[in-house]
């Protein structure tokens, strides 16, 4: 099973492919070069406000200028993510006014808070650098294409009129052959520009990230908050799980074993004088012991499905597929076994997604793809059903909670009318040997 035709739900802002993609990227370069004017403008506003601080009026001007600049920088962060997939972590929100806007002291306080804000200075630094460096970068492919157009589309018509001294790049265009050479050179420039555009956008995004990313400390604070939150969640979930297991054992298998002992004692007593009654009780004992086994089996399966322990994620998902009443096509590209907690989280998440598809999608067929790339387990569940899945449904929330301790992600792409694609990723290294180290007693 090694076909690769699963529709992966890329965002609509994936890097362009082919000629159309290159043209789109040129358009983006154009946009960047123009947007630099707005950046410069906003930067100048902020600088102006800063210069006016000694006069007092700067305190009134600074907050709106800073907000305007932040709005623009946010747009750049957003573009970097949509165009090239470069995620730029946003800074903390700007200090806001705690008092009504009419109150001048409120603005003063806000301006003072702004002066102490890391994100604000980052924005300002970027506002100075972007028009000079970023926009310049974006102009390179743009200039190539435009100059190429001049050579290829304009020169053939104008060289006769221009006469002597008409140069295109290093070619003196004064005859038909030189005109043709200029035309070819122009096409070459256009091709180079188109070729360069995607790479330029990527470099620009990386450059912007350098300047715009939240300071390291903000990142760390954010990370700690997330870890503390997810740790509390894990502890809650774990405690609830233990409680469930304890209750299941207590009310299920354990109670049945007690009943078993009682029935056996009664049967033993009856053996002497009422064989028929004893036989009935012994039948009961057998039935009860079967139920106890059944209870235990279900409990074990809920904790860790045996096939997952024995065979790992690939075969466990195959087994899920065999139990599903949908047609499930599976592709796996997993390198041996993954760490046990990852396998377990992945299994239960895929099981939930498959159950969701069976319940809501109305599609007869589901496609599951498991792979391990770039140090992450990635599972995609696709169906051609009716779509419109609710990302905040209880099932999907449960999946997210399972992935959270691993910093895993779940991306749902489910436009009304389908198809629905759920992609989950769990960062992990693979432990390559096929057999997991067992804690066996042998």
């Amino acid at each position, binding site marked *: 099973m090694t076909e690769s035709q699963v529709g992966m739900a890329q965002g609509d802002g994936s890097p362009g492919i082919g000629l159309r993609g290159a043209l789109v990227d040129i358009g983006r370069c154009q946009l960047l070069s123009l947007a630099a004017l707005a950046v410069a403008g906003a930067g100048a506003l902020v600088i102006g406000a800063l210069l006016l601080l000694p006069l007092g009026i700067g305190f009134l001007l600074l907050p709106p200028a800073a907000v305007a600049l932040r709005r623009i920088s946010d747009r750049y962060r957003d573009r970097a993510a949509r165009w090239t997939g470069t995620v730029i972590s946003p800074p903390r929100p700007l200090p806001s006014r705690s008092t009504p806007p009419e109150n001048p002291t409120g603005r003063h306080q806000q301006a003072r808070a702004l002066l102490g804000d890391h994100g604000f200075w980052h924005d300002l630094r970027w506002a100075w650098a972007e028009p000079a460096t970023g926009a310049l970068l974006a102009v390179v492919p743009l200039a190539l294409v435009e100059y190429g157009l001049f050579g290829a589309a304009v020169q053939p018509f104008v060289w006769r009129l221009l006469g002597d001294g008409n140069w295109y790049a290093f070619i003196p265009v004064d005859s038909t052959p030189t005109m043709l050479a200029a035309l070819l050179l122009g096409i070459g420039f256009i091709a180079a520009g188109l070729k360069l555009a995607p790479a330029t956008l990527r470099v620009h995004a990386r450059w912007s990230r350098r300047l715009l990313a939240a300071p390291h400390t903000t990142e760390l604070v954010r990370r700690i908050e997330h870890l503390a939150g997810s740790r509390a969640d894990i502890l809650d979930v774990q405690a609830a799980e233990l409680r469930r297991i304890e209750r299941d054992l207590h009310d299920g298998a354990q109670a049945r074993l007690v009943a078993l002992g009682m029935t056996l004692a009664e049967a033993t007593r009856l053996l002497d004088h009422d064989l028929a009654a004893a036989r009935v009780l012994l039948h009961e004992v057998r039935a009860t*012991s*079967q139920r106890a086994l*059944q209870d235990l*089996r279900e409990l*074990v*399966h809920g904790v860790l499905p*045996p*096939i997952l322990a*024995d065979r790992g994620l690939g075969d466990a998902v195959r087994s899920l597929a065999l139990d599903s009443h949908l047609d499930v096509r599976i592709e796996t590209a997993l390198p041996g076994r993954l760490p046990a907690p990852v396998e377990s989280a992945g299994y239960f998440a895929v099981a939930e997604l498959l159950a969701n598809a069976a319940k809501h999608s109305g599609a007869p067929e589901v496609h599951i793809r498991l792979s391990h790339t770039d140090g992450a387990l990635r599972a995609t569940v696709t169906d051609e059903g009716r779509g419109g899945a609710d990302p905040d449904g209880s099932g999907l929330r449960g999946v997210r909670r399972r992935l959270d301790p691993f910093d895993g992600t779940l991306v749902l792409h489910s436009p009304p009318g389908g198809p629905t694609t759920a992609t989950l990723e769990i960062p992990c290294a693979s432990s390559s040997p096929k057999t997991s180290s067992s804690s066996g007693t042998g």
Partner: protein
Amino acid sequence: MRVVLAEDLFLLRDGLTRTLQEHGFEVIAAVDNGPALLRTLLEEQPDVAVVDIRLPPTFTDEGLQAALAARRSRPALPVLVLSQYVDQLYAHELLAGGQGAIGYLLKDRITHTTQFIDAVRTVATGGTVMDPQVIARLLARSDARGTTAQLTPRELDVLALMAEGRSNAAVAQTLFISESAVAKHTAAIFTKLRIEPSADDNRRVLAVLAYLKR
């Protein structure tokens, strides 16, 4: 009949050996790990092997792997696999060769001695026995897909027992109907599911399973 037994827990191994011996089987070897099982199966050429799926040294599906490996060099070697749980994937792997002489039972069934001994005999003589749980799940699945919707409840009962490897006589006894009634139901099932009828019990089960697997 000569039996090779593989089970790592001493208590169960002992009990199984005793049960088999009481019913006239000769237990020629009782091993407790995967490699020893494979070696014994290839050397001793038993009439049937009774194998626990989870065995040392890996405590995973070592027993199943050893049985499948042995059947690759001796394709029709009768193997009855026992397990604490049933899994459709394992059932598929066991049936994949299409040779029959395969059994797959929950360990619970051992306590039902006659049923267990019947299963060992059926497998030893080339039959196929699937655990009722495997069958129930297969039927539930094909039910949800509507493939067995055309069958009457009684026919479903017969189909389930048939898929467990029971003979017409055993089916008749379980359902308290006459053998000719069973034959009639069977014919109706085969017609409705468009399965070619066959005299061979084993092929009958395989045909049913193959149908349900779709």
